[in-house]
């Protein structure tokens, strides 16, 4: 089939699925611009290259996690184990060896295996995603604490730290990595057959099965992707902080769900985008930064975050009802 314009849709329609998605994305961009603009007006310290760079670097780990979380939510799942995967992967892989590429290889493999276990429980054992990943979360927590006897230690190799904190031509390595992963994930969701099937499955699992989609494989793969994303995030996060901690990534499970939902994913499945998720992650991290810059109580960001989660979900709800 040739890509001639003669067959292209004639008039753009406001109510097409794509137009609706685009409007939701614009809403997020608008929101981010507004909070940045307001903060800039209130404090000169906000809109500086150094501060923006800080925000972006801090947003990177959440960015990885939310991409995985969003893909799991697309297939009507939920991954509560992401934070536990982050810490477990960081603890185990950095304790085994101090060669950076091997740390990453081991870590990613571990993340994929844990994701596969989640996927197996959900797709083959028919355990509710909420419970399957809750159990995985708790078990992993026990394993890593038992393994480290509660106190992980050990120095991180220099190259490992550089990956999380260093620059290439002034661009943080972590961001370059996130950009590559994000482009790949976006392409996969929007342009590949696999991504098409993921979204169709989320829209209607029964219809997907009857139209020949490999339904179980799709669910397992979504969880594997989430596990790998969490593993990458965990490694970058400990590299950034410089200390391996048993509670690395604590709170990321709920933050990633929040970001995915604010970014337009629906727990009912079938909906979600990489740009939306990343924008939402950026909004959440910006809020934290803004609260600090404006000299407000840090806890205030929790209040704002909670309000934002509910408001975003309510707005999407209203839109889908219209």
């Amino acid at each position, binding site marked *: 089939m040739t890509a001639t314009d003669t067959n292209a849709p004639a008039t753009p329609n406001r109510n097409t699925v794509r137009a609706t998605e685009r409007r939701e994305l614009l809403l997020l961009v608008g929101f981010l611009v507004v909070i940045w603009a307001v903060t800039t007006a209130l404090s000169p310290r906000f809109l500086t290259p150094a501060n923006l760079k800080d925000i972006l670097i801090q947003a990177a780990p959440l960015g990885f996690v939310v991409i995985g979380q969003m893909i799991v939510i697309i297939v009507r799942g939920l991954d509560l184990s992401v934070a536990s995967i982050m810490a477990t992967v960081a603890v185990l892989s950095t304790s085994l060896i101090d060669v950076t590429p091997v740390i990453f290889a081991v870590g990613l493999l571990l993340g994929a295996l844990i994701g596969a276990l989640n996927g197996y429980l959900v797709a083959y054992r028919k355990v509710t995603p909420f419970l*399957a990943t809750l159990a995985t979360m708790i078990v992993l927590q026990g394993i890593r604490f038992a393994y480290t006897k509660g106190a992980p230690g050990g120095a991180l190799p220099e190259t490992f730290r550089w990956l999380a904190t260093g620059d290439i031509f002034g661009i943080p390595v972590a961001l370059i990595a996130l950009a590559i992963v994000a482009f790949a994930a976006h392409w996969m969701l929007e342009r590949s057959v696999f991504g098409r099937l993921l979204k169709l499955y989320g829209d209607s699992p029964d219809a997907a099965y009857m139209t020949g989609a490999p339904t179980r494989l799709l669910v397992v793969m979504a969880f594997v992707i989430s596990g790998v994303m969490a593993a990458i995030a965990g490694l970058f996060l400990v590299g950034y902080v410089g200390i391996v901690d048993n509670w690395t990534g604590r709170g990321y499970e709920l933050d990633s769900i929040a970001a995915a939902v604010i970014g337009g994913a629906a727990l009912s499945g079938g909906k979600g985008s990489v740009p939306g998720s990343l924008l939402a992650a950026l909004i959440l991290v910006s809020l934290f930064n803004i609260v600090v810059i404006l000299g407000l109580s840090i806890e205030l960001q929790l209040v704002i975050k909670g309000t934002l989660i509910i408001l975003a979900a309510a707005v999407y709800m209203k839109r889908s009802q219209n």
Partner: protein
Amino acid sequence: MSTLVRATRAQPVHLVVLALIAIVFALGMSTSDRFATPLNIANVQDQMVTLAIVALAQTIVILSGGIDLSYAGALSFLAVVFAALAGDSGGTLLLAMAVVIALGVGIGIVNGAITAYVGVHPLITTLGTSTILAGAALLITRQPSGSVPLFFEDLTYGRIGAVPFGMLFVIALYLLVGFMLWRTGFGTRIFAIGDNEAASAVSGLPVRRTKVAIYALSGLLCAVAAMHMTGRFGVGDPRAGVGFDLRSITPVIVGGTLLAGGKGGVLGTALAVILLALLANVLNFMNVSSFYQWIAEGVIIIAAVSFFIGKDKS
């Protein structure tokens, strides 16, 4: 089916949980002479009061097909408010109780209203309110602060023989909620909505109002748990509730209540709370670190859920 079985919603899995309780108990007896003493048994009960109350609240919500993740923030917030207001006299205590109960119910109403009337998934709604309340608790105080009247603190430590007052209170709450589920229209509506919301609406049930009432009741029980907890600590801890959001779910599921709603009851939750508390206590006696207890908890969840696989599909 005998009326007793129907009224208590007893299930075969409860026998399994009972057997596990017996096994864990026997294990405890064989591990240490100090296990089966009134002191330790009272201790185990004290340990489970807070969890028992929030798990009871969670049971009601899950039976209706919802979920309430707001306990983490709500417990912290209510504990801080309670300790800030309770002062040192009976008068201030009563005022604090009234305020905390009103706030707890209010939180529940907000959760229920957003879920039922706006249509936001309860997981998202309650995650949002929990975050807000966690922030509010820390905005009030970053360190444990406030106080409760000494007599109230003593009350939460009081016991009759090997049974703490708190435990008697918990037993009363479970009986009350169990009775409510069996003998009131509200109780029937909880099961009906959890089983099939659309069919309940077609049958003329006030689905939305009922949902609001369910979350309000959940908030009320959360307030009760917060007051007991604060009495035990003697201060209001702004992190008191951390972890109770997810921890409250485990006993409900292990007790045989379906996460999808409509099936289960408070008997199973009670048994599961006892099992989990005993297990933690015995593992402590065996010098098994809490790290392995986590592993055990996760495995128990999967085992319990696997037990119901196949029954869940209809």
